[in-house]
C-alpha cells in the first residue's frame, strides 16, 4: 500500500507538466467564467449604495449583510421560491416517472423499432427551450390554437393554470433527456442477471420491477437532482410565456425576480438573491442526495 502511494505520487510529479497542459484550457475557462463571476457576485452582494440629494451621484460602499437582510424581507422572492418548489414537487416525479417508463419500454425486448422511438422521444430536447415555449404558447392560446375547441373553454394561460401549462412544456422538453440517462444505465446492467432471473422464471414485468428499477436508482437520483436544480432556475419558459399570458408576473420564478431586480438596476440586491438561491439549491440537492443514499443503503 505504502509503496503504491509513493509510486503514484512520484508518477504525478513526473507528469505534472503534461497534467498542466491538459488542465490549463479547462482551468482557465473555469476560473474566468465560473469562479470569478461567482466571487464577483458575492462581492457585489456585500455592497450598498449611498448618495446625497435628489440627483446626487451614487457611491458604492461596503454594506455587510444589508442586502441579505433585504432578501429575507423580500416577500415576492420567497413567494417565487415557494411557487417553483410546488412546481418541482409535482412536475419532477411525473417527468421522471414518464422517463423511466419510456426507458424501460425501449429496453424491453418486446418493443420493435426502439431505435426510432429512442430518437423520437429525445427529439424535443434538441428543440431550443425558447422555441419550445413559443410553440406551446401558441398551442395554448385561446383563439390562435389549432385546438380552439379546448383552449377557448379551458383557459390554459389563466392565473390558476399557467404554472401547470409551463410544467407541461418543461416535461415535454426534458423527458427524453432524462429517459436517455436512465436508458444508458439500463444498458450497463450485465446480461447474466437477466439470464439468472429468466431461469428463475421471472417475466418481463417482474424483471423490470425487481431488477431494472433498483439498478437504475442511481441514475434516477442523478436526474432527480438535475431536475431540482433546473426547477429552481426556471427562467426561459416563464419569460417567454409573459408574452402569451397576463398571469406570469415579473416575480414569477426566483430567476425572473433576480432579473427584474437587476434591471431596476439594483445589482447588489440581485447578487444577494442569486447567492441565496444558489445556497437554497445546494441545500436542497444535498438533502435529496443524503436522503436517497440512506434509502438505497437500507
Amino acid at each position, binding site marked *: 500500500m505504502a509503496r503504491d502511494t509513493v509510486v503514484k505520487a512520484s508518477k504525478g510529479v513526473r507528469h*505534472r*507538466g503534461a*497534467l*498542466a*497542459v491538459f488542465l*490549463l484550457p479547462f*482551468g*482557465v475557462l473555469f*476560473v*474566468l467564467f465560473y469562479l*470569478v463571476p461567482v466571487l*464577483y457576485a458575492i462581492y457585489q452582494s456585500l455592497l*450598498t*449604495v*449611498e*448618495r446625497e*440629494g*435628489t*440627483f446626487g*451621484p*451614487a457611491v*458604492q460602499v461596503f454594506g455587510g449583510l444589508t442586502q441579505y437582510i*433585504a432578501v429575507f424581507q423580500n416577500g415576492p422572492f420567497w413567494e417565487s421560491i415557494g411557487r417553483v418548489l410546488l412546481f418541482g414537487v409535482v412536475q419532477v416525479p411525473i417527468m421522471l416517472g414518464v422517463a423511466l417508463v419510456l426507458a424501460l419500454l425501449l429496453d424491453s425486448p418486446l418493443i420493435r423499432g426502439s431505435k426510432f422511438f429512442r430518437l423520437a422521444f429525445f427529439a424535443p430536447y434538441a428543440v431550443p427551450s425558447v422555441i419550445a415555449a413559443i410553440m406551446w404558447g*401558441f398551442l395554448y*392560446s*385561446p*383563439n*390562435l390554437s389549432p385546438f380552439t375547441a379546448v383552449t377557448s373553454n379551458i383557459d390554459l394561460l*389563466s*392565473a390558476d393554470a399557467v404554472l401547470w401549462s409551463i410544467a407541461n412544456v418543461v416535461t415535454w422538453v426534458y423527458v427524453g433527456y432524462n429517459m436517455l440517462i436512465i436508458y444508458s444505465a439500463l444498458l450497463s446492467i450485465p446480461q447474466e442477471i437477466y439470464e439468472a432471473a429468466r431461469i428463475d422464471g421471472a417475466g418481463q414485468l417482474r424483471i423490470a420491477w425487481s431488477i431494472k428499477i433498483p439498478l437504475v436508482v442511481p441514475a434516477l437520483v442523478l436526474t432527480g437532482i438535475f431536475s431540482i436544480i433546473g426547477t429552481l432556475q426556471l427562467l426561459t419558459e416563464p419569460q417567454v410565456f*409573459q*408574452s*402569451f*399570458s*397576463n*398571469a*406570469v*408576473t*415579473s*416575480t414569477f420564478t426566483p430567476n425572473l425576480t433576480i432579473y*427584474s431586480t*437587476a*434591471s*431596476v*438596476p*439594483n*445589482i447588489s*440586491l440581485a447578487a444577494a438573491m442569486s447567492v441565496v438561491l444558489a445556497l437554497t439549491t445546494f441545500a436542497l440537492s444535498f438533502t435529496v442526495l443524503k436522503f436517497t443514499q440512506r434509502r438505497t443503503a437500507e
Partner: protein
Amino acid sequence: MAISRVARVGAIAAISALALTACSTGGTDAPGASGDCAPSDGPVTLTFTSWLPGVEEAVAIWNEENPDIQVEVQTGPNGNGGTYQNFFNQLAAGNAPDLGQIEFDAMPNFRVQDGLENIAACEGILEAEDQFVGWTWSQVTFGEENAVYAIPQDTGPMAMFYRADLFEAAGIPVPTTWEEYEAAAAQIREQGGYINNFSQSDINAFAGLVWQAGGEWFSNDADGWTVDMTGAETTQVAEYWQGLIDNDLVAVYPPWTDEWNAAYNSSELWTWVSAVWGANTIASGAPDTAGNWAVAPMPQWEAGASAAGNWGGSTTAVLKGSDHPYEAAQFALWLNTDADALTAMNRTANIYPATIAGAQLPVFGEGVEFYGGQKIYEVFAEAGNNVDPNFTWGPTMTQVYNDVADGFSGAVSGNGTLLDALTAGQDATIAALKAASIPVKE
C-alpha cells in the same frame, strides 16, 4: 514545471486584469462638467445604440455629409426590453456607447445612475431649446439651469383610434367624453365586440391616461422625491377602468401579442386610445381592417375640454464616459432637427418629431390611406399642444412598470383591483428608492 509556472502566472494575470476592469466602475473624470465641451482633434468614430427601426438610413445621411465624424449604429431590443439594462451594465463597466436612445420616462433613472453627460456647454445646444416642443425640453433639462442631458427625438401625443365603419353601421356616436365612451362600450358589447382592450402590462399607457386627467405620480425638489400613485386623478382613472373590467366591457388580452393583433384584425376590438406611433401598430397588426379606421381626440373627463396625454417618445442622449461629447452632441442635435433625418425616421419608424418645425414636414400634412385618407397627424399635432408640460417621471420607472403590471395582471383576472395594484406599486416604489438610497419624502 516550467509550463505550470507560466500557466500560473498567466492565470493570475488574467484574473487580476479581470478584477481590475471589474473594480474600475466608470471613469471618475467628468468631461461634461459645464465649460468644457471642445471638439476632438482628427477623425472621430461614435457609437450609437438605438432600437428605432431603420435608424441606419438617417445615420447614413450624416455619415455621407461628415466624413470626419462617422457614426456606427448598434441596434438592440426596446429600452425596457433589455437595452436599458445593457446601458446600465456598460456604464458600470465604463464602456457605454457614445450615444444611446433613452425614452423620456427613463431619463430620471439614467440621471440618478449618473449615466448622462451634461452637454449644455457644447456649441449650439442651449440655443436649440426654441426648436423643441416645450414639455420635451423640460424633460431633458430636469428644469435645471445650464443643463441639457439629451436631445428630444420624438413624442407620443395620444388620441383615439376607432373603427369609423363599425361605429357608423351600429349608429353609435363617436365618444368625446369618457362617460360617452362607457355608454358606447355597453352598446358595442351588445353587438359582441369590445370597445377596447385593457392592456395590463402597458403601464406607461395608463400613465398617459393619468397624465391626461392631470395626475402626476412623481415630483422632486432638492430634498428628494415624492411618490403619489394613488392621488385623486389616478384613483379616478383606475376606478373608471376597473368598472369597465368588472362589467366585461373591455377585453383583457395580453398586449403586443398575436392574440391581441388578431382581436383587432377580426374587428372584435373597436378602439385603441394610443399614441401617434400606434398608427403603425394597427396598420401592421390588423391589415384586414385597412381603410376602416379613423382618429379622434381622446375622450375627455369634462365635456368640451381638450386635454391629452402622452405615451412614449425618446431622446438621444450622450452617455457618461464618451470621449467625444462635442461631436456626439452635434450628431444628436442634427439627428433630431434635420428635416431629411426626421423624414427618414418617420418613413422607417413612424416617429413624430419633438421639434416644432418637424411637425410641419410635408409628410405630416398628407392623408393616410389606412385611415381612410384622413390627415391623422393634424389630430396628433393638436393633442401635442394639449399635453400638460409639467409631468415628471420617477427615477426607477422600469421597476414601477414591473410592479404595477404584476398587480394589474392580478386585477384583470379578478384578483384585487387596479387601485390595489397602484397602492402596492407605490409601496414597492418607495422601497426601491430607499434601497437605492434615493431620498424619498413620505
